[in-house]
């Protein structure tokens, strides 16, 4: 499979072969996606849904087909799929477009301690704007959500619950189906951050009963700058457009404007067509492998890495041991070496990992993680056991140097 990804044959200036293990930050792109985008600019490019000519039609058909592909991929209807610039924009669209008109001072907003900053800060800021209560659900010692505490914190005043289906820091799969049931029993809405889960496991919005789901194209073989906001049909009535302007209107008069139907009303301005069709091409590639198989592959690499690293002196592994709660993310520290220095030594061995707080400071603070930072190796479809072996060897090199 590595041959489908031109960048994976990179040789670093020091002669080391690239081993790319930073997939939770962004994935590499197969040639089919790169060529699809190139083809768009070579033979289709025009503005979408506006220009009544041959190229305008080509572009519009491709863009609409991309939306259909995304809808099918997550088991949604087409008009429930809104293209955005990424997960961050999607979540802010909900916070401003649904939160501002629907949340008031007496309400409560709940998030998990393990949320990525992009699923934490918009809700905290919304709560501050509305002067309403902002509750952060504590975690168990392994970083999983403390479900007892969650169930205690939710009340009839709770309006919004935000939760990732898979955490980006430790790669923990959260029980969103169970959370969803509790949320809806209490009359609140569930906002799911799917940035990490959608690339790595099957997604069925009807099954998880999410009111909103956000994800990004670049973490699933697609281009940067394209993302998705899924909004359940029932929510579209109460979701106000966040951006206004061209392409999202029905009729504009001097004194007032009526908006177009969903999803157009949420996509003001010329959309990222190249991104949308690139994402559709990525979905085609993923579908050929099968999302179940991807999760299984990630887990087999996680188990292999975990079994090798758990006995390595000075290495601390974070997160639960149970494989059914995990996917392909190994988060660790080496005693006495700051993760940035670990990453630098690994880089000199050709291995690309992430180090730092992973935009998830609350979980690192709650679990009192050394340095308030960790190293993180994350696997994807093109990684294999030899990549894990290289990682383990390089960790030994870091220990020798520090």
């Amino acid at each position: 499979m590595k041959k489908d990804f031109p960048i994976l044959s990179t040789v670093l200036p020091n002669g080391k072969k690239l081993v790319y293990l930073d997939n939770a930050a962004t994935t590499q792109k197969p040639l089919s996606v790169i060529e699809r985008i190139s083809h768009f600019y070579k033979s289709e490019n025009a503005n979408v849904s506006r220009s009544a000519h041959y190229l305008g039609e080509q572009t519009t058909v491709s863009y609409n087909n991309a939306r259909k592909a995304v809808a099918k991929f997550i088991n949604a209807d087409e008009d429930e799929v809104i293209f955005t610039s990424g997960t961050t924009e999607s979540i802010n669209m909900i916070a401003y477009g649904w939160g501002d008109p629907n949340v008031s001072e007496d309400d409560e907003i709940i998030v998990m301690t393990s949320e990525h900053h992009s699923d934490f800060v918009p809700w905290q800021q919304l709560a501050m704007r509305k002067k309403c209560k902002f509750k952060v659900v504590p975690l168990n010692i392994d970083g999983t959500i403390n479900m007892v505490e969650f169930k205690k914190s939710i009340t009839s005043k709770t309006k919004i619950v935000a939760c990732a289906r898979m955490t980006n820091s430790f790669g923990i799969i959260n029980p969103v189906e169970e959370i969803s049931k509790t949320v809806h029993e209490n009359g609140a809405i569930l906002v799911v951050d799917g940035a990490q889960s959608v690339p790595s496991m099957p997604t069925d919005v009807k099954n998880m009963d999410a009111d909103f789901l956000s994800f990004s194209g670049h973490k699933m073989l697609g281009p940067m700058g394209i993302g998705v906001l899924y909004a359940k049909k029932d929510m579209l009535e109460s979701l106000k457009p966040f951006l206004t302007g061209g392409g999202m209107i029905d009729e504009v008069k001097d004194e007032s404007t009526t908006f177009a139907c969903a999803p157009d009303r949420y996509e003001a301005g010329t959309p990222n067509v190249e991104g949308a069709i690139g994402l559709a091409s990525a979905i085609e590639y993923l579908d050929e492998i099968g999302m179940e198989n991807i999760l299984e592959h990630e887990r087999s690499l996680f188990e292999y890495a975990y079994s090798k690293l758990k006995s390595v002196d000075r290495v601390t592994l974070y997160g639960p041991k149970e494989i059914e709660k995990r996917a392909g993310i190994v988060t660790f520290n080496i005693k006495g070496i700051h993760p940035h220095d670990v990453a630098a030594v690994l880089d000199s061995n050709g291995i690309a990992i992430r180090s730092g707080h992973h935009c998830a400071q609350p979980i690192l603070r709650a679990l009192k993680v050394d340095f308030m930072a960790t190293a993180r190796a994350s696997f994807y479809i093109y990684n294999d056991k030899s990549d894990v072996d290289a990682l383990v060897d390089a960790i030994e090199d870091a220990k020798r140097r520090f």
Partner: protein
Amino acid sequence: MDELSDLYAEVIMDHQRHPRNFGKLENFDREIQMTNSSCGDQISLQIKFENEKIKDLKFTGMGCAISMASASVMTEVMKGLSVKEAKHFCDEFLEMIREGKVPADDLKDAKVFSNIHKYPMRIKCATLAWHALQKAIE
């Protein structure tokens, strides 16, 4: 020798293992806390002034080898300097890191950081303590 020695020069590793002026001052005139938000390095710097001079300074903090060694070197270079000299040294150091400009001789041990400009991801680590000092004496 490999390219890592370029980043982690022997002097840097020595300061990382045995940071100078690490700890708290009993009496100080200014205390500055600063973090490098991109990676979480933290520093707290305390300074005692006397007659427009930096009489003493100490730091505590948490971060990578580069950020801690840089703080250690900074305190060694700055101790005893006038505020005016300290400002000048800060500017020289930051210019060396950002532009890769050949450092003036008076930077002493701080010159070992001259390679950092080749590692853009580490610039914030190397400059954190110097920015803290800049803020303390502005």
